[in-house]
Protein backbone atom coordinates (compact mmCIF):
# COMPACT_ATOMS: atom_id res chain seq x y z
CA UNK A 1 0.00 0.00 0.00
CA UNK A 2 2.78 2.37 1.01
CA UNK A 3 4.62 1.51 -2.22
CA UNK A 4 1.49 2.32 -4.20
CA UNK A 5 1.26 5.74 -2.54
CA UNK A 6 4.92 6.34 -3.28
CA UNK A 7 4.43 5.44 -6.93
CA UNK A 8 1.38 7.71 -7.17
CA UNK A 9 3.40 10.60 -5.76
CA UNK A 10 6.21 9.84 -8.17
CA UNK A 11 3.76 9.85 -11.10
CA UNK A 12 2.28 13.12 -9.92
CA UNK A 13 5.73 14.66 -9.69
CA UNK A 14 6.62 13.45 -13.18
CA UNK A 15 3.33 14.82 -14.54
CA UNK A 16 4.09 18.13 -12.83
CA UNK A 17 7.49 18.35 -14.47
CA UNK A 18 5.93 17.61 -17.86
CA UNK A 19 3.29 20.30 -17.39
CA UNK A 20 5.91 22.83 -16.30
CA UNK A 21 7.99 21.94 -19.34
CA UNK A 22 5.13 22.38 -21.81
CA UNK A 23 3.94 25.66 -20.33
CA UNK A 24 7.43 27.14 -20.39
CA UNK A 25 7.55 26.65 -24.17
CA UNK A 26 4.90 29.30 -24.62
CA UNK A 27 6.77 32.09 -22.85
CA UNK A 28 6.01 35.76 -22.73
CA UNK A 29 3.01 37.95 -22.01
CA UNK A 30 -0.36 37.16 -23.46
CA UNK A 31 -3.32 39.43 -23.93
CA UNK A 32 -4.89 39.85 -20.49
CA UNK A 33 -1.59 39.49 -18.61
CA UNK A 34 -0.26 42.29 -16.43
CA UNK A 35 2.94 43.73 -17.88
CA UNK A 36 5.99 43.97 -15.62
CA UNK A 37 7.26 47.44 -14.76
CA UNK A 38 10.78 48.55 -15.58
CA UNK A 39 13.21 51.43 -15.24
CA UNK A 40 15.37 52.03 -18.31
CA UNK A 41 17.75 54.67 -19.58
CA UNK A 42 16.39 57.09 -22.16
CA UNK A 43 18.32 58.81 -24.95
CA UNK A 44 18.46 61.88 -22.64
CA UNK A 45 20.55 59.84 -20.18
CA UNK A 46 17.83 59.74 -17.50
CA UNK A 47 15.99 56.67 -16.28
CA UNK A 48 12.24 56.31 -16.78
CA UNK A 49 9.54 53.85 -15.86
CA UNK A 50 5.99 53.77 -17.23
CA UNK A 51 4.84 55.51 -14.03
CA UNK A 52 6.85 58.57 -15.15
CA UNK A 53 5.10 58.77 -18.52
CA UNK A 54 2.43 61.41 -19.11
CA UNK A 55 0.18 61.80 -22.12
CA UNK A 56 0.19 64.87 -24.39
CA UNK A 57 -2.04 66.72 -21.90
CA UNK A 58 0.24 66.05 -18.93
CA UNK A 59 -2.23 63.52 -17.51
CA UNK A 60 -1.68 59.92 -16.44
CA UNK A 61 -2.09 57.96 -19.68
CA UNK A 62 -5.12 55.81 -20.39
CA UNK A 63 -2.75 53.36 -21.99
CA UNK A 64 0.71 52.88 -23.42
CA UNK A 65 1.77 51.95 -26.94
CA UNK A 66 4.90 50.09 -25.91
CA UNK A 67 7.08 49.18 -28.86
CA UNK A 68 10.27 47.19 -29.13
CA UNK A 69 12.18 48.79 -31.98
CA UNK A 70 15.71 49.67 -33.03
CA UNK A 71 17.83 51.73 -35.43
CA UNK A 72 19.22 48.88 -37.48
CA UNK A 73 16.35 46.63 -38.52
CA UNK A 74 14.98 47.59 -41.95
CA UNK A 75 11.44 46.78 -40.81
CA UNK A 76 11.78 48.96 -37.72
CA UNK A 77 13.21 51.75 -39.88
CA UNK A 78 10.27 51.54 -42.26
CA UNK A 79 7.97 52.13 -39.29
CA UNK A 80 9.86 55.11 -37.78
CA UNK A 81 7.78 57.81 -39.45
CA UNK A 82 4.60 55.90 -38.71
CA UNK A 83 5.62 55.60 -35.07
CA UNK A 84 5.98 59.38 -34.89
CA UNK A 85 2.57 59.79 -36.54
CA UNK A 86 1.06 57.23 -34.20
CA UNK A 87 2.38 59.08 -31.16
CA UNK A 88 1.24 62.46 -32.49
CA UNK A 89 -2.23 61.08 -33.11
CA UNK A 90 -2.60 58.96 -29.98
CA UNK A 91 -0.76 60.83 -27.19
CA UNK A 92 -3.41 63.62 -27.17
CA UNK A 93 -6.01 60.87 -26.72
CA UNK A 94 -4.10 59.50 -23.74
CA UNK A 95 -2.05 56.78 -25.40
CA UNK A 96 1.60 57.81 -25.81
CA UNK A 97 4.22 55.71 -27.57
CA UNK A 98 7.07 54.33 -25.44
CA UNK A 99 9.91 52.79 -27.45
CA UNK A 100 12.44 50.27 -26.12
CA UNK A 101 15.58 49.22 -28.01
CA UNK A 102 16.30 45.59 -26.97
CA UNK A 103 19.39 44.63 -29.03
CA UNK A 104 22.86 43.93 -27.69
CA UNK A 105 24.92 46.90 -28.87
CA UNK A 106 28.11 44.84 -29.24
CA UNK A 107 26.39 42.84 -31.94
CA UNK A 108 24.64 45.93 -33.32
CA UNK A 109 26.83 49.00 -32.70
CA UNK A 110 24.33 50.99 -34.77
CA UNK A 111 21.90 50.60 -31.87
CA UNK A 112 24.13 52.28 -29.26
CA UNK A 113 22.53 54.83 -26.96
CA UNK A 114 24.39 57.55 -28.86
CA UNK A 115 23.10 56.32 -32.23
CA UNK A 116 19.60 56.03 -30.74
CA UNK A 117 19.81 59.64 -29.57
CA UNK A 118 20.83 60.79 -33.01
CA UNK A 119 17.98 58.87 -34.65
CA UNK A 120 15.48 60.22 -32.13
CA UNK A 121 16.65 63.74 -32.95
CA UNK A 122 16.71 63.23 -36.74
CA UNK A 123 13.24 61.71 -36.77
CA UNK A 124 11.78 63.99 -34.14
CA UNK A 125 10.81 61.27 -31.65
CA UNK A 126 8.60 63.10 -29.15
CA UNK A 127 8.46 59.98 -26.97
CA UNK A 128 10.84 57.97 -24.79
CA UNK A 129 13.39 55.89 -26.66
CA UNK A 130 14.77 53.62 -23.95
CA UNK A 131 17.57 51.09 -24.03
CA UNK A 132 17.17 47.63 -22.48
CA UNK A 133 20.87 47.53 -21.53
CA UNK A 134 20.68 44.42 -19.36
CA UNK A 135 18.34 42.69 -21.83
CA UNK A 136 15.96 41.85 -19.00
CA UNK A 137 12.84 43.69 -20.10
CA UNK A 138 12.25 42.19 -23.54
CA UNK A 139 12.43 38.58 -22.26
CA UNK A 140 9.99 39.47 -19.46
CA UNK A 141 7.57 40.65 -22.15
CA UNK A 142 8.40 37.74 -24.44
CA UNK A 143 9.31 40.05 -27.31
CA UNK A 144 11.17 38.24 -30.07
CA UNK A 145 11.59 40.73 -32.87
CA UNK A 146 11.69 44.37 -33.86
CA UNK A 147 9.33 46.04 -34.39
CA UNK A 148 6.77 44.56 -32.00
CA UNK A 149 3.96 46.38 -30.19
CA UNK A 150 2.40 45.79 -26.76
CA UNK A 151 -0.64 47.97 -26.15
CA UNK A 152 -1.14 48.27 -22.38
CA UNK A 153 -4.14 49.82 -20.64
CA UNK A 154 -3.83 52.12 -17.60
CA UNK A 155 -3.62 49.07 -15.31
CA UNK A 156 -0.63 47.83 -17.35
CA UNK A 157 -2.68 44.94 -18.69
CA UNK A 158 -1.76 43.79 -22.21
CA UNK A 159 -4.71 44.41 -24.54
CA UNK A 160 -3.08 43.96 -27.94
CA UNK A 161 0.25 42.58 -29.23
CA UNK A 162 1.76 42.44 -32.67
CA UNK A 163 2.16 44.65 -35.70
CA UNK A 164 1.39 48.35 -36.12
CA UNK A 165 -0.51 47.81 -39.37
CA UNK A 166 -0.88 45.33 -42.20
CA UNK A 167 1.67 46.72 -44.62
CA UNK A 168 5.27 47.22 -43.51
CA UNK A 169 6.54 47.90 -47.00
CA UNK A 170 4.14 50.62 -48.03
CA UNK A 171 2.50 53.02 -45.58
CA UNK A 172 0.19 54.33 -48.30
CA UNK A 173 -1.20 50.84 -48.99
CA UNK A 174 -2.17 50.09 -45.38
CA UNK A 175 -5.69 48.70 -45.12
CA UNK A 176 -5.89 48.01 -41.40
CA UNK A 177 -4.11 49.99 -38.71
CA UNK A 178 -4.17 47.41 -35.93
CA UNK A 179 -2.91 49.70 -33.16
CA UNK A 180 -5.25 52.60 -33.95
CA UNK A 181 -8.16 50.16 -34.17
CA UNK A 182 -7.14 48.59 -30.86
CA UNK A 183 -7.01 52.00 -29.13
CA UNK A 184 -10.42 52.84 -30.59
CA UNK A 185 -11.76 49.58 -29.12
CA UNK A 186 -10.37 50.44 -25.68
CA UNK A 187 -11.90 53.91 -25.93
CA UNK A 188 -15.24 52.27 -26.73
CA UNK A 189 -14.87 49.97 -23.71
CA UNK A 190 -14.36 46.93 -25.90
CA UNK A 191 -11.60 44.37 -26.27
CA UNK A 192 -9.48 44.84 -29.39
CA UNK A 193 -10.15 42.40 -32.22
CA UNK A 194 -7.73 41.16 -33.43
CA UNK A 195 -5.94 41.20 -30.08
CA UNK A 196 -2.86 39.56 -31.56
CA UNK A 197 -1.22 39.81 -34.97
CA UNK A 198 2.06 38.64 -36.41
CA UNK A 199 4.56 40.34 -38.66
CA UNK A 200 7.96 39.69 -40.14
CA UNK A 201 10.74 41.38 -38.23
CA UNK A 202 14.36 41.15 -37.21
CA UNK A 203 15.22 38.76 -34.42
CA UNK A 204 16.30 40.58 -31.25
CA UNK A 205 20.08 40.33 -31.01
CA UNK A 206 20.92 38.65 -27.70
CA UNK A 207 24.29 39.06 -25.97
CA UNK A 208 26.45 35.98 -26.46
Amino acid at each position, binding site marked *: MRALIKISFLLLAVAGIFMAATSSVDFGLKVGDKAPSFKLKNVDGKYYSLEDVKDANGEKPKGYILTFTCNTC*PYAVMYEDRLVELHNAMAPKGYPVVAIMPNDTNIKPGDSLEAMGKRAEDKGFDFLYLIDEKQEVFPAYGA*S*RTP*EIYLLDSDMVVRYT*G*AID*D*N*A*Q*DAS*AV*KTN*YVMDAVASLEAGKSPD*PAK*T*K*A*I*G*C*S*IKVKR
Partner: protein
Amino acid sequence: MQDTARNTIIAILFIVSTSVVFAQASQEKAPFLIVEKYDDLAYIFEQNNDTTYVINFWATWCGPCVKELPYFETLHKQYKDQKVKVLLVSLDFKRQIERKLIPFVKKRQLQAEVIALTDGDYNSWIDKVDTDWGGAIPITVVYKGNKRKFHGEEFSNYEDLENLVKQFL
Protein backbone atom coordinates in the same frame (compact mmCIF):
# COMPACT_ATOMS: atom_id res chain seq x y z
CA MET B 1 -3.86 75.84 -73.43
CA GLN B 2 -5.74 72.67 -74.33
CA ASP B 3 -2.75 71.61 -76.37
CA THR B 4 -0.50 71.94 -73.34
CA ALA B 5 -2.90 69.84 -71.29
CA ARG B 6 -3.03 67.21 -74.01
CA ASN B 7 0.75 67.19 -74.35
CA THR B 8 1.08 66.77 -70.60
CA ILE B 9 -1.29 63.82 -70.67
CA ILE B 10 0.57 62.26 -73.56
CA ALA B 11 3.86 62.77 -71.72
CA ILE B 12 2.45 61.17 -68.57
CA LEU B 13 1.05 58.24 -70.55
CA PHE B 14 4.42 57.81 -72.22
CA ILE B 15 6.27 57.77 -68.89
CA VAL B 16 3.77 55.35 -67.34
CA SER B 17 3.88 52.98 -70.30
CA THR B 18 7.66 52.94 -70.50
CA SER B 19 7.98 52.34 -66.78
CA VAL B 20 5.55 49.42 -67.07
CA VAL B 21 7.66 47.99 -69.88
CA PHE B 22 10.78 48.52 -67.80
CA ALA B 23 9.21 46.82 -64.81
CA GLN B 24 8.24 43.85 -66.95
CA ALA B 25 11.67 43.69 -68.52
CA SER B 26 13.35 43.69 -65.13
CA GLN B 27 11.00 40.98 -63.89
CA GLU B 28 12.06 38.84 -66.82
CA LYS B 29 15.65 39.48 -65.87
CA ALA B 30 15.16 38.05 -62.39
CA PRO B 31 16.79 34.62 -62.27
CA PHE B 32 14.10 33.40 -59.89
CA LEU B 33 10.38 33.31 -59.26
CA ILE B 34 8.67 36.37 -57.73
CA VAL B 35 5.43 35.61 -55.88
CA GLU B 36 3.15 38.41 -54.68
CA LYS B 37 0.58 36.41 -52.72
CA TYR B 38 1.43 33.77 -50.15
CA ASP B 39 -1.44 31.57 -51.32
CA ASP B 40 0.29 31.28 -54.69
CA LEU B 41 3.33 29.89 -52.88
CA ALA B 42 1.53 27.59 -50.44
CA TYR B 43 2.09 24.66 -52.80
CA ILE B 44 5.76 24.42 -51.76
CA PHE B 45 4.54 23.24 -48.34
CA GLU B 46 2.01 20.81 -49.77
CA GLN B 47 4.11 18.39 -51.82
CA ASN B 48 3.21 14.83 -50.95
CA ASN B 49 6.03 12.70 -52.33
CA ASP B 50 9.28 11.14 -51.17
CA THR B 51 11.35 14.30 -51.56
CA THR B 52 12.56 16.11 -48.43
CA TYR B 53 11.88 19.83 -48.76
CA VAL B 54 14.14 22.26 -46.90
CA ILE B 55 12.50 25.69 -46.95
CA ASN B 56 14.37 28.65 -45.52
CA PHE B 57 12.93 32.16 -45.06
CA TRP B 58 15.59 34.87 -45.32
CA ALA B 59 16.40 38.34 -46.66
CA THR B 60 19.55 40.05 -47.90
CA TRP B 61 19.33 42.66 -45.11
CA CYS B 62 19.08 40.01 -42.36
CA GLY B 63 22.56 39.35 -40.91
CA PRO B 64 21.96 35.94 -39.33
CA CYS B 65 20.16 34.82 -42.52
CA VAL B 66 23.05 35.73 -44.79
CA LYS B 67 25.45 34.05 -42.39
CA GLU B 68 23.67 30.69 -42.63
CA LEU B 69 23.06 30.79 -46.40
CA PRO B 70 26.32 28.90 -47.16
CA TYR B 71 25.02 25.99 -45.06
CA PHE B 72 22.04 25.68 -47.37
CA GLU B 73 24.25 25.96 -50.43
CA THR B 74 26.47 23.18 -49.09
CA LEU B 75 23.40 21.06 -48.34
CA HIS B 76 22.12 21.63 -51.86
CA LYS B 77 25.44 20.54 -53.38
CA GLN B 78 26.04 17.56 -51.08
CA TYR B 79 22.57 16.12 -51.57
CA LYS B 80 22.19 16.90 -55.26
CA ASP B 81 21.85 13.23 -56.13
CA GLN B 82 19.32 12.52 -53.40
CA LYS B 83 15.69 13.50 -53.05
CA VAL B 84 16.38 16.75 -51.21
CA LYS B 85 15.03 20.08 -52.44
CA VAL B 86 16.35 23.32 -50.93
CA LEU B 87 14.17 26.41 -51.37
CA LEU B 88 15.38 29.83 -50.26
CA VAL B 89 12.33 32.07 -49.85
CA SER B 90 13.50 35.68 -49.77
CA LEU B 91 11.39 38.28 -47.95
CA ASP B 92 13.28 41.20 -49.45
CA PHE B 93 11.00 44.17 -50.03
CA LYS B 94 9.31 44.51 -53.37
CA ARG B 95 11.14 47.69 -54.29
CA GLN B 96 14.53 46.20 -53.42
CA ILE B 97 14.32 43.04 -55.52
CA GLU B 98 15.95 44.65 -58.51
CA ARG B 99 18.47 46.73 -56.61
CA LYS B 100 19.47 44.26 -53.91
CA LEU B 101 18.18 40.73 -54.28
CA ILE B 102 19.02 40.10 -57.95
CA PRO B 103 22.61 41.40 -57.63
CA PHE B 104 23.03 39.42 -54.39
CA VAL B 105 21.87 36.15 -55.95
CA LYS B 106 24.06 36.70 -58.98
CA LYS B 107 27.15 37.76 -57.02
CA ARG B 108 26.92 34.83 -54.63
CA GLN B 109 26.07 32.52 -57.52
CA LEU B 110 23.43 30.82 -55.40
CA GLN B 111 22.76 27.34 -56.73
CA ALA B 112 19.80 26.42 -54.53
CA GLU B 113 16.46 27.67 -55.83
CA VAL B 114 15.52 31.19 -54.72
CA ILE B 115 11.92 32.43 -54.61
CA ALA B 116 11.02 36.03 -53.72
CA LEU B 117 7.81 36.41 -51.71
CA THR B 118 6.61 40.01 -51.57
CA ASP B 119 3.26 39.55 -49.76
CA GLY B 120 3.38 42.32 -47.12
CA ASP B 121 0.18 41.29 -45.35
CA TYR B 122 2.26 39.20 -42.98
CA ASN B 123 -0.39 38.51 -40.38
CA SER B 124 -2.47 36.76 -43.04
CA TRP B 125 0.12 34.09 -43.80
CA ILE B 126 2.73 33.66 -41.02
CA ASP B 127 0.53 31.14 -39.18
CA LYS B 128 0.02 29.21 -42.42
CA VAL B 129 3.75 28.53 -42.52
CA ASP B 130 3.84 27.56 -38.85
CA THR B 131 1.84 28.64 -35.81
CA ASP B 132 5.05 28.54 -33.73
CA TRP B 133 6.58 31.25 -35.91
CA GLY B 134 6.52 34.68 -34.25
CA GLY B 135 7.69 36.50 -37.38
CA ALA B 136 11.44 36.93 -36.85
CA ILE B 137 13.73 35.58 -39.56
CA PRO B 138 15.50 33.33 -40.34
CA ILE B 139 13.42 30.20 -39.90
CA THR B 140 13.54 26.86 -41.65
CA VAL B 141 10.88 24.23 -42.30
CA VAL B 142 11.91 20.71 -43.26
CA TYR B 143 9.25 18.24 -44.36
CA LYS B 144 8.64 15.03 -46.25
CA GLY B 145 5.06 13.87 -46.71
CA ASN B 146 3.44 14.23 -43.29
CA LYS B 147 6.66 14.46 -41.29
CA ARG B 148 7.59 18.06 -40.51
CA LYS B 149 10.05 20.02 -38.39
CA PHE B 150 10.07 23.76 -37.68
CA HIS B 151 13.41 25.37 -36.82
CA GLY B 152 12.64 28.84 -35.46
CA GLU B 153 16.12 30.39 -35.54
CA GLU B 154 19.40 30.35 -37.44
CA PHE B 155 21.62 27.26 -37.56
CA SER B 156 24.91 27.75 -35.75
CA ASN B 157 26.74 25.45 -38.17
CA TYR B 158 26.30 23.21 -41.19
CA GLU B 159 26.27 20.02 -39.13
CA ASP B 160 23.14 21.09 -37.23
CA LEU B 161 21.31 21.67 -40.49
CA GLU B 162 22.55 18.42 -42.02
CA ASN B 163 21.60 16.42 -38.91
CA LEU B 164 18.08 17.82 -39.04
CA VAL B 165 17.72 16.90 -42.71
CA LYS B 166 19.19 13.43 -42.16
CA GLN B 167 16.25 12.61 -39.89
CA PHE B 168 14.11 12.68 -43.01
CA LEU B 169 16.26 10.55 -45.31
